[in-house]
């Protein structure tokens, strides 16, 4: 088994572009663009707390069922893709597009039947896109 010890991978032609050969051994995909750039799982009930996260410097409780995670390393633009979910069967997670920014991933948890925001003990979010 081969092993490379390295702290940083950088493309030779373009620093921010490294191709990875796909599972079918023919096509390639961008390593940098394909990596998830941030994720978190937080407890949104009462005083919010984080179970675990990546690339998140801090969290903000914006109100009932409304949470923000501030990135340690910002995204290149506010158009990044994101997804959110909760651990409840009747409460969905949603990305707050009106407050989407390069530095924050803001999500809401809401009751499926009427859209009312509700706090939940398990709130999940991920962000995919380009880092600044």
């Amino acid at each position, binding site marked *: 088994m081969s092993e490379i010890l390295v702290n940083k991978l950088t493309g030779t032609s373009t620093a921010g572009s490294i191709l990875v050969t796909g599972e079918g051994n023919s096509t390639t995909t961008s390593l940098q663009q394909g990596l998830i750039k941030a994720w978190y799982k937080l407890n949104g009930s009462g005083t919010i707390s984080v179970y675990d996260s990546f690339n998140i410097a801090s969290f903000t409780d914006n109100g009932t069922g409304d949470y923000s995670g501030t990135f340690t390393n910002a995204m290149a633009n506010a158009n990044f893709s994101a997804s959110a979910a909760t651990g409840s069967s009747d409460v969905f997670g949603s990305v707050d*597009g009106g407050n989407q920014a390069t530095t924050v991933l803001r999500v809401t948890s809401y009751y499926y039947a009427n859209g009312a925001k509700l706090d939940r003990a398990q709130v999940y979010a991920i962000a995919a896109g380009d880092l600044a």
Partner: protein
Amino acid sequence: MALGKIKADTLEHSTAGSLGTEFFVNGSSKHWISVTYNSGTPTNRDSLNVSSIADTAAGECTVTLSTAFNAATDYCWVSGTLNTSASQEQITCYTKAASNYKTYNYNSGGAGGIDPEGFYVVSMGDLA
């Protein structure tokens, strides 16, 4: 200068641990997209591995991939909706093929076929 190529099974960071390169290949998302709607027309704001998007019908959007997955049924598809108002929406994967998929949007009242403000999709799986 020819492009460099490294073949390895493991990458190890000095402090953050090591990771098998299969996680780079299998664990990277192969597709993501951020879409907004304006007067019923979807716009691709930013994306990875997208050839085109099409407004198929009200509340439906077909996304065609540049590089297909190896099978229609195997790849993971997760989504999010872009909501700026009190009306919360939920997007689902209506149909799915190796090289494209169609989304279908519901509003918070459970009514389907409603154009969303926008949506996000991230997909993981094996490329063809």
